[in-house]
C-alpha cells in the first residue's frame, strides 16, 4: 500500500529555489534513503514534508489524503502521521529525557499522563536509555541525545519517520549506537525516509536510494544500482568521490 506520494514538489527560501519538481512514492514499510552533496535540498525536502517550510508548487499525498499545507487542520493531520528527527537532535533543553518524550502526547494529544509515561519508559528502554530517563539533554552524550530524539518521535506513533542526517553531528564513536537503533526500527517495518551520509549504512538498510543535486532528483533506484551502476554522470561522480574516502 502506498504511504506517501510526492508529486512535482518545489520549494524556495525567498527567491532562491531549493527544491524543484521532486517526485517520490514511498510504500508502507519501505525505507528510502536520500543522498547527495550538501546543499542539494535533502533536508529541505524533509522540512517541507512536516510543514516547516511551505511548498511553492506540487503536491504531497499522505495515506491517500492530499495535504494542503496552508490549512491548519491538514498541517496538524500530516504532523500526526509524519515525525521528524533532526540533525542537531533539537531536544528541549529545559526538560528531562522522559519529559521530552511525554510532552507532545500529553500536551498536544491530551492523552493520560500515566499511560504516556509508561509508554515513554518502554521507548527509552528500547533505544537503550532506561537508566537516563531523569537526565537533562546537556547531561547526555550526542548519541544518547539523538536516541532520546528518536524515542520522542516514536512516541507520536507516526506512520512515517523522517531522519535528517541524524549522525552528522555525532563524534565517530557514537554513530554506531544511533545506527543500531535505526536498524531496530527497520526490522520492525517502520516506513522511513533517511537523509544520510553514511553510505555503508544506506546500502545496508535502504530499499531504494534517491540521489539529489541542486534541488532536483537525479536518480532513484535500488542501492546496488545507485552505488554500483549509476546511470547519471552526477551520480557517478558523487558516488566515486564518496567511496574513495
Amino acid at each position, binding site marked *: 500500500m502506498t504511504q506517501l506520494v510526492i508529486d512535482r514538489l518545489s520549494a524556495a527560501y525567498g527567491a532562491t529555489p531549493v527544491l524543484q519538481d521532486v517526485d517520490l512514492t514511498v510504500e508502507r514499510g519501505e525505507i528510502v534513503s536520500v543522498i547527495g552533496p550538501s546543499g542539494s535540498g535533502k533536508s529541505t525536502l524533509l522540512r517541507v514534508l512536516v510543514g516547516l517550510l511551505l511548498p511553492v508548487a506540487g503536491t504531497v499525498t499522505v495515506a491517500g489524503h492530499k495535504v494542503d499545507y496552508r490549512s491548519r487542520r491538514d498541517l496538524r493531520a500530516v504532523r500526526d502521521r509524519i515525525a521528524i528527527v533532526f540533525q542537531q537532535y533539537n531536544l528541549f533543553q529545559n526538560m528531562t529525557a522522559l519529559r521530552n518524550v511525554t510532552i*507532545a502526547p500529553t500536551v498536544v494529544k491530551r492523552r493520560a499522563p500515566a499511560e504516556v509515561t509508561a509508554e515513554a519508559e518502554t521507548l527509552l528502554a528500547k533505544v537503550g536509555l532506561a537508566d537516563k530517563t531523569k537526565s537533562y539533554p546537556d547531561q547526555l552524550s550526542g548519541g544518547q541525545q539523538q536516541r532520546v530524539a528518536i524515542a520522542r518521535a516514536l512516541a507520536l506513533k507516526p506512520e512515517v519517520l523522517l531522519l535528517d542526517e541524524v549522525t552528522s553531528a555525532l563524534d565517530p564513536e557514537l554513530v554506531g549506537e544511533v545506527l543500531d537503533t535505526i536498524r531496530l526500527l527497520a526490522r520492525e517495518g517502520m516506513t522511513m525516509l533517511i537523509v544520510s551520509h553514511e553510505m555503508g549504512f544506506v546500502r545496508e538498510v535502504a530499499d531504494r536510494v534517491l540521489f539529489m543535486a541542486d534541488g532536483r532528483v537525479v536518480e532513484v533506484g535500488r542501492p546496488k544500482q545507485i552505488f554500483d551502476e549509476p546511470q547519471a554522470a552526477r551520480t557517478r561522480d558523487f558516488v566515486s568521490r564518496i567511496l574513495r574516502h
Partner: protein
Amino acid sequence: MDRLLEEIPRFFNYYNMIFIGQAFFYTTAMSFIGCTVGFAAGFGLAVMRHERIFRSLVLRLLAITYTEIFRRIPFLVKLMVVFFAFQLSGLEVSMFTVAVTTVALSAAAFASENVRAGLESVHDNQWDAAEAMNMGGLTALRRVVLPQSWPVIIPPSMTYSVGLVKSTSIASQIGVLELTYAAKVMTNKGFSAFLCYGTILVLYFVLCFSLNRFAAWLETRLDPTRHRPA
C-alpha cells in the same frame, strides 16, 4: 556644622520619621506597581512581534514602533505628556496614578526589548521541534522557549527596574509624595538641605543597592552554565 548637629535631633523626630517612611513606601509602591504592569505589557509586545508566534505584520510593526518610540523619550517629558493627557481626557486620577502610568509605559518599552532578546537567545531548532510535534506557538512559548529564556530576561530587567526606582524621583515634579518630594517639604519647613537630601540619598541607596544585590544573586542562580536542580 554646629547648626547641623543641633538640627539632627529635631529632624529625626517621630512625626518626620512617619512622614519619610510614608514617602519611602510611595517610592517603592510606585516603582513596584509600575514595573509589574509595565513588564506584563512589554512581555505582550515581545510576544506580539515574535515571528514564530504571530505572523501578523501589523502587530509586529505596532510593537516595534511602541518600543522604539517610548524608550527614547526622557522620563520627565513622558511624565508631562501622561499628566496632560489625563487632564484633557477628563479622567479624575491621582498624581500617583499619573506617575505609575509613566513608570509602566517606560518599563513596557524596555521589558519588550529584554524579553525579545531572551526569546531570541533560544535556538530556532527548539521552535522547529515543537512545531513539528504540532505544538502551537503559544504552547511552545510556554513549555519550551520561556523556561529557557528567563535567565536572559530577568537580570537586565531587574537592573532596569532599579533605574526606574531612581527615575520615580522625577515624579516629585507633579507633587507625588515620594522621597524626593518629602525632602523638598522638609527643606521648606526650614531644615537644612544637606540633612534632607542627604537622608533621602541614603534611603534611595539602601533600596537600590539591595535590589541590585538581589539582581546579581539571581543572575548567578539563573546562570544556564550552572547545573539546574533536577
